[in-house]
């Protein structure tokens, strides 16, 4: 069979969702952000909630997330997205409100805001991309940087005595009465992408059920920051990140 005969609209089984804009993503080749943006866009499309969704972008690489998903967006100050989301949702309970935050934004400068939004049980979705490094500013140590991991500000590797320990903030948030769904996923294989999509869809559905905060961590790569090729970065993540940040649901009620 000739390829021309296969590549026909009626034979299409998968393609870019129209919820993604045509803008070329500014992310580095192989960056996890792109995959997760796509997953969120597909969830919004499949749920048919484009007109009911408000996204909140962070400071960091994903600050420009608003260029890629065709929904209404607000751009938060560094770490403050859960505070914005709190008011956006409370004042607009008919809307699906989600924040999209990296590890520096969520677990460092915004640790207070995320803790209290989760503890109040705000009916929002928090999507947390943990790649254990500050990407935008050039690869500095993040709160989630692993012990021994080399970054621009831990050139000899993260040392607990000097830099403290990597922060398992997702485990902390799972302890709070306000969270209803806390899970850690990844997006480097088709199976992982499908699981993450299921988790994000569940989180969006939860946000209309008055159950509390849904929190989805996606362990990802920063191949530029890690100074690895995208494929090697995925392997490094599986070998080094997953043992410390094990995947799976921590809470689902």
């Amino acid at each position: 069979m000739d390829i021309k005969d296969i590549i026909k609209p009626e034979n299409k089984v998968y393609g870019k969702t129209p919820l993604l804009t045509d803008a070329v993503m500014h992310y580095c080749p192989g960056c996890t952000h792109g995959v997760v943006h796509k997953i969120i866009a597909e969830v919004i499309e499949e749920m048919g909630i484009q007109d009911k969704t408000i996204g909140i972008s962070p400071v960091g690489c994903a600050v420009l997330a608003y260029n890629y998903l065709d929904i209404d967006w607000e751009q938060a100050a560094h770490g403050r997205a859960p505070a914005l989301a709190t008011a956006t949702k409370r004042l607009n309970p008919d809307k699906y409100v989600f924040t999209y935050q990296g590890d520096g934004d969520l677990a460092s400068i915004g640790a207070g805001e995320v803790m209290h939004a989760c503890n109040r049980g705000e009916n929002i979705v928090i999507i947390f991309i943990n790649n254990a490094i500050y990407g935008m500013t050039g690869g500095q140590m993040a709160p989630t940087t692993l012990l021994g991991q080399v970054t621009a500000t831990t050139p000899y590797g993260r040392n607990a005595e000097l830099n403290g320990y990597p922060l398992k903030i997702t485990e902390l948030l799972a302890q709070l009465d306000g969270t209803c769904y806390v899970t850690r996923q990844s997006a480097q294989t088709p199976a992982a992408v499908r699981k993450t999509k299921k988790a994000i869809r569940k989180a969006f559905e939860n946000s209309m059920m008055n159950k509390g905060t849904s929190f989805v961590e996606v362990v990802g790569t920063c191949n530029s920051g890690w100074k690895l090729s995208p494929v090697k970065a995925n392997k490094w993540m599986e070998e080094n990140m997953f043992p410390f940040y094990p995947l799976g649901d921590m809470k689902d009620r």
Partner: protein
Amino acid sequence: MAVKGAITVDTEKCKGCSVCIANCPTQTIALSLEVNGKGYNYAYMANPDNCTGCTNCATVCPDAVITVYRVKI
């Protein structure tokens, strides 16, 4: 029943990250020797006969540049 697939790549948007290649179970995809406008060697169907249209490549593509087609034969 046998299936046969094919993919198209938005070559100008592809960044040649190769994550699709690593996730293709049939070694269908490779990076082109040519580069696109941004200087990236982009993904293409190097072995079209192998493709089953499984969508793995497009599922993991961070830039959503792959469209997948499939027919039953």
